[in-house]
């Protein structure tokens, strides 16, 4: 019995073939993604690498996708630091890209902006259970009037949710009411919303994207980031360790952490909304190709890291940037260009880790000095897994990671001494796709793909 696991990435369509009993990796191949014509074209080209005998006896086909912009969600809540943040966490945890996050009553301008961004789904939160009703109802009414047709998940005040559903019914393609993302102040409950998003993805969104046939033929099951997240979850469970995944791509840098993030130092008080055990952040301005210009804006303030061992003229670098940011498939052509790519990758890792991890600040009280932590303390994370084209195909991913992990800010709670591993077969997504159905085969694939890169 074999399983064929496919990922329709933004650049490449990857196919992994594995034996289920006894578990074993048969091989992986890839071909450029064909989102502009038919996704299945790229799939057929990718599996050309396998022999007909190898493709015989496939019992399970499952696929993930981040093609055509991935799963795009607009999150709406009440207070930015509370229900908007909770709604964002829920959307990110479902493997989505949050294209807009709006607080308080939606303005006409915001509605227009959301329409332009063409989200696949709206996540409507606001109010704790029994708390504020006015804003979520007003926002439901504005969405109903707006001719936004995307499905809506209502995950706000339970006392207002049925009314919000009634307002939206027949106005949008589908309304699903689920548990509040913040049932009480400073209580995060993202699981019900994540599940609702997942179900809508299978039932509505693949259809809306014109991928019904993909779903039928290869079992399109989830957005790629969710597959990667499931792989990380499995890895953490199998090893009984706190782990992180860093995924550097052309358009975004994703970070996942599987750790409780509680304060590790004594005399430390935790403030703000609690963080989910499985936390994912997506940095849309940190990427190696499509987002290269925004990356440069971010790092120019700090100066390009000292990863370029020679004096590069502004012109030389600008020419490289022009070439690769317009053609997302293009690679570095010589040693000097490779050094540029290296510097960009290090900058992506460093900045994305910094944004994902929590911080501590000193506070002086009459009782003496205290530490106040916000966000997750990831300093004791035991293992860091690297994936994404920029790292998988790098010449020396270990030294890239070490450079990206070098702490430049002692108050930022990034991992200090994790063991490093590389998803060198680029099959982490396949691990996630198999994790629920065939955990043993998934574990085998995980072992097969993780290549140790030593310690920091």
């Amino acid at each position, binding site marked *: 019995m074999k399983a064929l696991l496919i990922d329709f990435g933004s650049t490449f369509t990857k196919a992994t073939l594995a034996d289920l009993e006894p578990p074993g990796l048969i091989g992986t191949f890839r071909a450029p993604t064909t989102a502009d014509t038919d996704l299945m074209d790229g799939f057929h080209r990718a599996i050309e690498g396998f022999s007909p005998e190898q493709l015989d006896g496939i019992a399970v086909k499952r696929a993930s996708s981040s093609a055509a912009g991935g799963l795009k969600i607009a999150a709406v809540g009440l*207070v930015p*630091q509370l229900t908007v943040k909770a709604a964002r966490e829920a959307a990110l945890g479902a493997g989505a890209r949050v294209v807009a996050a709006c607080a308080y009553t939606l303005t006409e301008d915001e509605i227009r902006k959301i329409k332009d961004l063409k989200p696949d789904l709206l996540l409507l939160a606001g109010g*704790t259970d029994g708390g504020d009703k006015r804003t979520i109802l007003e926002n439901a009414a504005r969405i109903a009037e707006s001719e936004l047709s995307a499905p809506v998940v209502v995950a706000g005040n339970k006392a207002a949710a049925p009314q919000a559903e009634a307002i939206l019914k027949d106005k949008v393609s589908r309304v699903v009411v689920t548990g509040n993302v913040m049932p009480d102040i400073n209580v995060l409950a993202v699981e019900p919303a994540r599940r609702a998003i997942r179900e809508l993805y299978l039932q509505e969104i693949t259809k809306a994207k014109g991928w019904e046939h993909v779903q039928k033929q290869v079992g399109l099951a989830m957005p790629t980031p969710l597959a990667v997240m499931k792989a990380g979850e499995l890895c953490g469970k199998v090893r009984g360790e706190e782990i992180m995944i860093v995924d550097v791509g052309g358009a975004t840098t994703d970070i996942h952490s599987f750790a409780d993030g509680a304060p590790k130092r004594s005399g430390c008080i935790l403030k703000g909304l609690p963080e989910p055990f499985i936390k994912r952040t997506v940095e849309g301005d940190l990427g190696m190709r499509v987002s290269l210009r925004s990356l440069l804006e971010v790092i120019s303030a700090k100066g390009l890291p000292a990863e370029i061992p020679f004096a590069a003229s502004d012109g030389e670098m600008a020419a490289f940037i022009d070439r690769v940011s317009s053609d997302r498939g293009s690679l570095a052509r010589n040693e000097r260009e490779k050094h540029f790519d290296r510097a960009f990758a290090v900058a992506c890792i460093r900045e994305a880790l910094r944004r994902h991890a929590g911080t501590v600040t000193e506070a002086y009280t009459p009782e003496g000095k205290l530490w106040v932590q916000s966000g997750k303390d990831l300093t004791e994370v035991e293992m860091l897994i690297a994936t994404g084209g920029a790292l998988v195909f790098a010449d020396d991913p270990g030294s890239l990671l070490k450079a990206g992990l070098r702490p430049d800010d002692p108050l930022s709670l990034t991992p200090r001494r994790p063991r490093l591993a590389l998803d060198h077969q680029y099959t982490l997504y396949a691990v996630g796709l198999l994790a629920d159905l065939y955990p043993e085969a998934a574990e085998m694939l995980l072992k097969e793909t993780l290549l140790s890169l030593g310690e920091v």
Partner: protein
Amino acid sequence: MPGNNRIILGVIGSDVHAVGNKILEMSFQEAGFKVINLGVMVSQEEFIHAAIESSAGAILVSSLYGHGEMDCRGLREKCREAGLGDILLYVGGNLVVGKRTFSEVDQQFKKMGFDRVYPPGTLPEEAIAELKRDLDL
């Protein structure tokens, strides 16, 4: 808002006195309030954000370390700015240091927009009774 029993509780500023805060939480809960306790070291913004999301009827501020006047200044104005105009504001504890009578302190905080001000040693029952009256419970 008559009939609204949701209240926000917390110790303001850099104050870390946690024991009284727990006692207040238990007392108000037993008296039938839905208590949203933000704990110690709570900023004005955190009180306001919590009150907006939970549509609370009152904010109860404690301050034990003598900086209450500084920490509480501007809270009423920010509440108005955030659309919480009529929310009840209670404050209690060792609100100031120095030689001032409680009636001076009381006046001072009322001027700052607080509805009720309590000196050290006040029993929770006193504030509970007044809060029930103020909230029409």
